[in-house]
C-alpha cells in the first residue's frame, strides 16, 4: 500500500523540471540600460583556477573581427575579415558562400519561428550551436545559440547585455571537437549618441573550462583578445563576428564544458558641446555613462558534442 502511495506521490515530488529557470516577464527588457545586465556565473566557474594561455591581436593567426576596417562606427560590422582569412569556414554544402544576413526568418519581435529555410544559406543559422545539441535551445542564454546575430528590431530580446564582470556558463554537453570559436557582438552605452555612435576598443577575455583529472574541479584556460574595435550606439544592426582558431590560442577544445567572458574598455563619450565623459564598465559604480558588451551569438561551428 505504501509503495502504491509512493508511486502516486512521485509526480508531486519530481515536479519542476521545466520551472528551474524562470524569469519575471519584464526581466532584461528594462528601458534603463544598466538594469538589463546579465552577470550570472554558473556554480564553480568563478572559483576555478585560470591560466592565460594566449594573448591575441587582430591579425592572421590572431583573432578576426568584423569587416577589418574600424575608421567609422559604420565600418564595424559583419564577417569579412574572418571570411578573408578562412574562406572555407563560410562555404555551404554546395560550395557557395554563406550569407551574414538576413540572420533570421522574422515573423515579428519575440515570435518563435522555424529557421530551417535559412540552413545552408545563412552563416549563423547554419552554424548555430542549437543545431548541434538540443540542450542549447533551453534557458536565457539560448539567445546566444539561436543564430540571431543582429538586433532585427528585437531590442534587448535579441542580446545578452554584459558589464565588465561578464558572465560564465556551463554548456549542456561536453565539447569533443571544434576548430574555432566566434561570437557576434557590438558595444552598447546609455550615452545619448544613438545613430551616431563611436568606435570603442575592448580587451576581451574568454575562458574555457574543463574538468581537472579529479573530474570535479574546474580549471580555466583564458584567451585575451586585445584592442577589439566595435561600434557603440551607431546601430543595433551593426554587429561584428569576432573569433579565433583554437589552434592559434593553444587550446585543445576537447573536454571543454563551459566558458566565461569578461572585458575591460577604455571608452569616452564626447557630447555635443565637445565635453568628454569617461564611461564605466562597472554597472554598480556611480557614473553618468556606462558601456557594455552586447553579445548576440556564441559559436563553435561544426563542433561535436558528447
Amino acid at each position, binding site marked *: 500500500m505504501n509503495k502504491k502511495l509512493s508511486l502516486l506521490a512521485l509526480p508531486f515530488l519530481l*515536479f*519542476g523540471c521545466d520551472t528551474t529557470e524562470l524569469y*519575471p516577464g519584464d526581466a532584461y527588457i528594462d528601458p534603463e540600460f544598466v538594469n538589463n545586465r546579465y552577470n550570472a556565473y554558473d556554480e564553480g566557474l568563478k572559483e576555478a583556477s585560470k591560466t592565460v594561455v594566449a594573448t591575441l591581436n587582430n591579425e592572421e593567426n590572431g583573432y578576426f573581427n568584423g569587416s577589418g576596417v574600424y575608421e567609422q562606427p559604420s565600418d564595424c560590422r559583419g564577417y569579412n575579415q574572418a571570411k578573408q582569412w578562412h574562406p572555407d569556414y563560410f562555404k555551404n554544402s554546395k560550395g557557395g558562400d554563406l550569407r551574414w544576413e538576413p540572420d533570421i526568418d522574422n515573423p515579428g519581435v519575440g515570435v518563435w519561428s522555424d529557421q*530551417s529555410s535559412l540552413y545552408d544559406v545563412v552563416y549563423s543559422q547554419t552554424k548555430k550551436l542549437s543545431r548541434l545539441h538540443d540542450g542549447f535551445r533551453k534557458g536565457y542564454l539560448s539567445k546566444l545559440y539561436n543564430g540571431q546575430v543582429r538586433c532585427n528590431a528585437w531590442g534587448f530580446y*535579441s542580446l545578452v547585455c554584459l558589464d565588465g564582470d561578464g558572465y560564465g556558463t556551463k554548456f549542456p554537453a561536453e565539447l569533443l571537437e571544434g576548430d574555432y570559436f566566434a561570437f557576434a557582438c557590438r558595444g552598447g552605452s546609455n550615452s545619448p549618441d544613438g545613430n551616431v555612435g563611436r568606435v570603442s576598443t575592448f580587451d576581451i577575455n574568454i575562458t574555457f573550462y574543463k574538468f581537472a583529472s579529479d573530474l570535479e574541479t574546474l580549471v580555466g584556460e583564458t584567451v585575451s583578445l586585445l584592442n577589439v574595435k566595435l561600434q557603440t550606439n551607431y546601430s543595433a544592426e551593426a554587429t561584428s563576428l569576432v573569433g579565433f582558431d583554437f589552434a592559434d590560442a593553444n587550446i585543445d577544445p576537447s573536454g571543454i564544458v563551459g566558458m566565461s567572458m569578461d572585458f575591460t574598455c577604455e571608452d569616452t563619450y564626447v557630447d555635443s558641446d565637445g565635453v568628454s565623459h569617461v564611461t564605466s564598465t562597472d554597472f554598480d559604480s556611480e557614473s553618468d555613462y556606462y558601456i557594455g558588451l552586447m553579445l548576440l551569438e556564441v559559436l563553435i561551428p561544426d563542433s561535436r558534442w558528447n
Partner: protein
Amino acid sequence: MKDNDAKPTLMQTESKQGAVLSFLAIEVVALICFGFAGATGLTILRAAGLCIALFLYPLISNSLRFKSIRKKDLYLLLPVLILPLFLGFSMFHLAISSGLSFVLDGLVTAIGFLGIGALGFMLSSLDKLKKEWILLGVLGGLTLVVLITFMYSLCSYGPFYASIYAGDVYYYDGVVFHIAQEGKYLDGFTFVEADIKFALTLPFILACSGIGLLSLFFQKLDKKVIAGLSVASGVGALNLIFTPHLKAIIALLLVYAVAFVAAWLLKIRAKSEEARKKVDKGVMIAFLVLAALVLLGVFLLIIDSILVSGGGGFLRKIPLLGRYFEDGAFMNRIEVAIGELIFNYDNAGRRSLDFASLLFGANSNLVYDIRIFEFQILYQNGFIAFFLLLYFIFFFVYKGYVALTKVTDQDRFFVFAILGLAFGGFIYLSLFDSELPLKHPSEIDGIFSTHSTNLLPLTRSNVALLMAFCFGAIYLPEKLDPAQVVAVPIAVQSADYQEVKIDE
C-alpha cells in the same frame, strides 16, 4: 455426429465475426481517443475505422435500428453526410498544402468522419455488445492519454503552475514564452508545449464523462460503471484543477449544470403523459428560440463584418457588448476573418466579392487564431461548410434529445456519458478553440508528427473524430423505439463474446 462436433453454423460464425470486429472497432476508437502515433496514426486509424465499419455492415444490416432508417431519415442526414466533404476540402487547405497532399489529406479527413461516425452507429447497433465496452474504449483511450500527460505535466511544472508562475517566462531558442499559458500535449510519441487551452481540451472532455453518472437519478448502475465513470471524469477534472484553468473549470460547472437540468427535465417527463407533452413542448420552444437566436446572431455578425471591412460597423456601438467588437478585440478578429473570406482586394485597395472563397473557405494561408471553432470552420472551409455545421450541431442536439427520451434503462448511462462528452467538446471548442497551439514545434518533421508549423486544424484532429463517433453512437432513426430492438432477437445480433481459434 454429435452437435458439438458439427461445423459452426452461419449464426455462430457471424457471432464470432461480430465479436472480433467489435473488439477491433473498440480498439480503433480507443486509439483515436488516445491520439496514437499523432497525425500519421490518425490517418491509418481513419482508414481502419472505415474498413471495420464496412465489415460490420452485414452484421447490423438486419438490425431494427438500421432497417428503421427511412427516406426521411436519409433526407435529414444528407447535410450531415456531405459536411465531411466540405470539411476535408477547402480553398484554405489548398492554399496551405500542395496539389496531391491536398487531395489525399482532404480525402482521408472526409472518409475519416464518415467511417468513424458509421463505426459509432454500428457499434451501438450491435445489441449483444454491451455499451459498457464501447464506453470503455472511448474513456480508456481518453483517460490514458490525459493521465500520462497530466503526470508529465506535474513532473515538468508542478501542481498549480498556471497560478504560481503567472507572469513568469522561460526562454527557448532565445524567445520568451509565458509558462502559465502553456501545457503539455502528447503529439505522436513526443511531448510538446502547446497553448494551455489546447492542451486542456481532452481533460475537459474527459471530465464531462461524469455526466453519465446522472443516470443514477433513474436507476441503479453497475458498480464497475460507476467506478469507471468516476475515475475517468475525476482524472479530467483533477487535471483542470491542478493546472489550474479557472475559465475551463467554470465552463465545466456550466456543462454539468445544463446536464443536471436536462436530467431533471427527463425525470419530470417520465412522471406522466401530460408531463411528457409539457416537457417536449418546452424543449421544442427552447430549441427553436435558440436556433433563431443563433441564426440572428450569425446574420448580424456577417452584416457587421461586411461593414467593418469597409471601415464601418454597428455592433461596436452597442453598450456593454460593443467593446468586444472594437479594433483588435476578440469579436473583431472574427469579423476581420469573415471580411477576408468574403472580399478580394486589388492593388488599388478596391474590394470585390470573392465567391469561391465565400463558399469554400479563405483563399489564403493566413491563419486567424479565432477562439470559436464554428467561425474557424467558416474561415477555413467557407459558408457552405459553416451552415452545414450549424445544421449538424442542431441536428445533434435534436437527436440527442430523442436518444435521451427513447433510451432503455440499461443503456441510459451510455447515452448520458456520450452526450456529455459531445456537449463538453462542443462547449469547450466554442470558447477555447486554438488552431495555432504549438509553442515551438520541431524544426525537423518526425515520423509521427508532420507539424513543421504550429497550425493544427480542428478538422484534422482526433477531437473532431470523437464528435463524429458520438453522433453515430447516439443516432436513432425517426421511427424507432429501442425497446423493440431489445425485444426482437435477430440472429446476427447475437454476438456473444467467445474464445475464437485463429484457424476457424
